[in-house]
């Protein structure tokens, strides 16, 4: 295997929404200074991460008559208090600028009669989001100072004395190992999917809402390097269209659909309107025998159904295929009739873009590892980010990373250290091993089944108790051990081994977090059956660090807006 050495001033891991935007901001802010900005991306930036298929709206925007604090209040309420006020406020302050910047890149945004953005509620603007990622990618590619390494899977940090030195990556299609050195690193690898058994396992296992290629790499690298993580136990469960797993928001907020049970009763107000309560309500209705729950749109005029189909083609095309198939099966033109879509909860994700799980960062988005910053769905404490919030965070992280990088001198070219050699040798072992009893697929299935049954997945109605979590933890350890004996016939298979191992690392921390929170603050996202309801003592963060191979839980007091949080211990 070849070894390629690449040095950067700013190294960005993951070229998704946050990664691309961080690169653009850093490039613009340092124009003419000769800085080297490198993005390392496992896919290709034109279609990668959450935005690969397109998105339906910009979900975070401060509409007319509202202010950033309103957004903070909304996000705090939705997360039942477990948010970082400092992070939310600085993110909210950057939302509208992000949206304007997207429009400047060519994103089509719907306007009202006065020329302002047509709003869907006070926080959403309507767009054509099909080409949002190609637009971002084109802007990145136009920057001379940005180099994009693609089909490169980052799998480990290089850290010394709690300070980042760079990262190690492997080619996905080429037999190359990358030794990436940098003054500052921004982690933007997104959230984590595929930890739990999905709604349709087997052949359809990747029909999941969150991108299955976002595997928690950034989290795992951080955990193994001793970074502090926060709120992983606030998992995200999405309510999505059954089968296609397409977002339901377009139907609910856009087309005014009502969510009802099989008796035709609108049930939402019984359970409450936070994201977690909506999921909880749907699950309860089903458990109590009033399923399936559907989103129903009664009054669709002629042509409106076609518009709905188009909106879905722009972000989740399979849902439109499904509708057309249904129409054909019903044998009639249903253009003017009502429309009902069954909804269900997904498997849980770790997703700092919707909930609060991810890296514990200071107010400037620096993690507890010096010189390592985090933005987007991988960063914790600041839920309800969506596209524009991920960008706002990326802008903050880019500014901070530039400031940090200025003070750091890269050592002259040196032979890769011991930790690099260990990572390189491990990969070589996977590639050269003559045979293995188990496959990645088998171990992944076992991991997902274990999490599903014992760590609050779909099968257990998102519920768990201590004894189950202990079993889950034990099995994750065993599977981690077994994964060390896997075999990779080529580089694509090596990628798969890393993806599995990342998920296992994150699962272990997630289980520890679920156990540490002695309450059930977000019932739709998970319930600890021994600790029902919220506890007053629960109003604090559950954080963790891997120390000497064991996970140490750290409880921290809430940080509110107006405070500037710095790492001190």
């Amino acid at each position, binding site marked *: 295997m070849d070894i390629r050495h690449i040095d950067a001033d700013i190294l960005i891991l993951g070229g998704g929404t946050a990664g691309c935007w961080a690169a653009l901001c850093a490039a613009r802010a340092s124009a003419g200074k000769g800085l080297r900005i490198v993005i390392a991306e496992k896919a*290709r930036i034109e279609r990668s991460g959450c935005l690969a298929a397109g998105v339906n709206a910009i979900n975070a925007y401060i509409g007319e008559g509202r202010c950033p604090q309103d957004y903070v209040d909304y996000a705090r309420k939705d997360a039942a208090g477990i948010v970082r006020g400092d992070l939310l406020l600085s993110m909210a302050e950057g939302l509208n600028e992000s949206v304007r910047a997207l429009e400047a890149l060519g994103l089509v945004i719907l306007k009202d009669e006065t020329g302002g953005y047509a709003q869907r509620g006070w926080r959403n603007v309507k767009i054509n989001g*099909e080409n949002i990622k190609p637009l971002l990618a084109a802007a990145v590619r136009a920057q001379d100072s940005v180099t994009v390494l693609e089909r490169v899977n980052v799998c480990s940090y290089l850290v010394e004395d709690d300070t980042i030195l760079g990262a190690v990556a492997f080619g996905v299609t080429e037999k190359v190992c990358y030794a990436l050195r940098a003054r500052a690193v921004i982690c933007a690898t997104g959230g984590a999917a595929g930890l739990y058994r999905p709604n349709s396992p087997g*052949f359809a296992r990747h029909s999941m809402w969150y991108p299955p290629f976002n595997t928690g790499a950034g989290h795992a690298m951080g955990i193994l390097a001793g970074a502090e993580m926060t709120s992983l136990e606030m998992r995200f469960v999405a309510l999505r269209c059954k089968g296609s797993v397409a977002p339901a928001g377009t139907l609910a907020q856009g087309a005014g659909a009502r969510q009802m049970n099989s008796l035709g009763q609108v049930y939402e107000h019984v359970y409450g309107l936070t994201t977690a309560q909506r999921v909880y309500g749907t699950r309860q209705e089903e458990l109590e025998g009033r399923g399936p729950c559907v989103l129903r749109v009664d009054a669709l005029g002629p042509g409106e159904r076609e518009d709905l189909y188009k909106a879905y083609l722009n972000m989740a*095309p399979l849902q439109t*295929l499904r509708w057309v198939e249904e129409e054909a099966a019903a044998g009639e033109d249903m253009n003017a009739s009502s429309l009902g879509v069954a909804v269900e909860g997904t498997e849980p994700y770790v997703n700092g873009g919707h909930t609060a799980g991810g890296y514990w960062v200071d107010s400037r988005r620096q993690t507890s590892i010096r010189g390592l910053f985090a933005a987007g769905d991988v960063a914790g404490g600041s839920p309800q980010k969506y596209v524009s919030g991920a960008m706002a965070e990326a802008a903050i992280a880019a500014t901070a990373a530039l400031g940090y990088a200025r003070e750091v001198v890269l050592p002259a070219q040196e032979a890769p250290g011991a930790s690099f050699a260990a990572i390189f040798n491990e990969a070589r072992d996977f590639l050269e091993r003559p045979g293995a009893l188990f496959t990645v697929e088998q171990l992944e299935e076992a991991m997902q089944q274990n999490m599903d049954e014992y760590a609050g997945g779909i099968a257990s109605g998102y519920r768990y108790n201590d004894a189950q979590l202990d079993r889950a933890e034990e099995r994750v350890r065993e599977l981690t051990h077994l994964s060390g004996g896997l075999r990779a016939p080529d580089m694509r298979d090596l990628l798969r081994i890393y993806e599995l191992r990342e998920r296992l690392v994150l699962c272990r921390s997630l289980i520890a977090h679920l156990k540490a929170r002695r309450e059930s603050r977000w019932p739709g996202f998970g319930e600890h059956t021994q600790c029902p309801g919220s506890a007053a003592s629960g109003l604090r963060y559950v954080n963790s660090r891997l120390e000497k191979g064991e996970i140490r839980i750290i409880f921290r007091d809430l940080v509110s807006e107006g405070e500037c949080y710095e790492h001190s211990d």
Partner: protein
Amino acid sequence: MSIVIEQESCNGCGRCLAVCPGALLCANAKGRAEIRYPADCWSCAACVKSCARGAIALYSAPACGGRGGLLRARREGEILHWVISLPDGTQRTISVDRRSANRY
């Protein structure tokens, strides 16, 4: 959920291989595109939209309610024509203009 690639229509240009976010597509011995990990497809349709020959179609897995329909895409300037072919031989085209925002 996954895709099918019609071998007769594929000219081996490699666009779909380059674009797939999961690196699931490879060139086969004849230089044509093939999905190496069919069960790992996320149905994002990036490959479908990238293929100028209309050789790639998306379908729903039976476990996700699929009924055998195929979804292809053809680009014409700013317009993306989505063509749905149903098992009974009927077709339906829905054309989306990139320049107009979602109504919903």
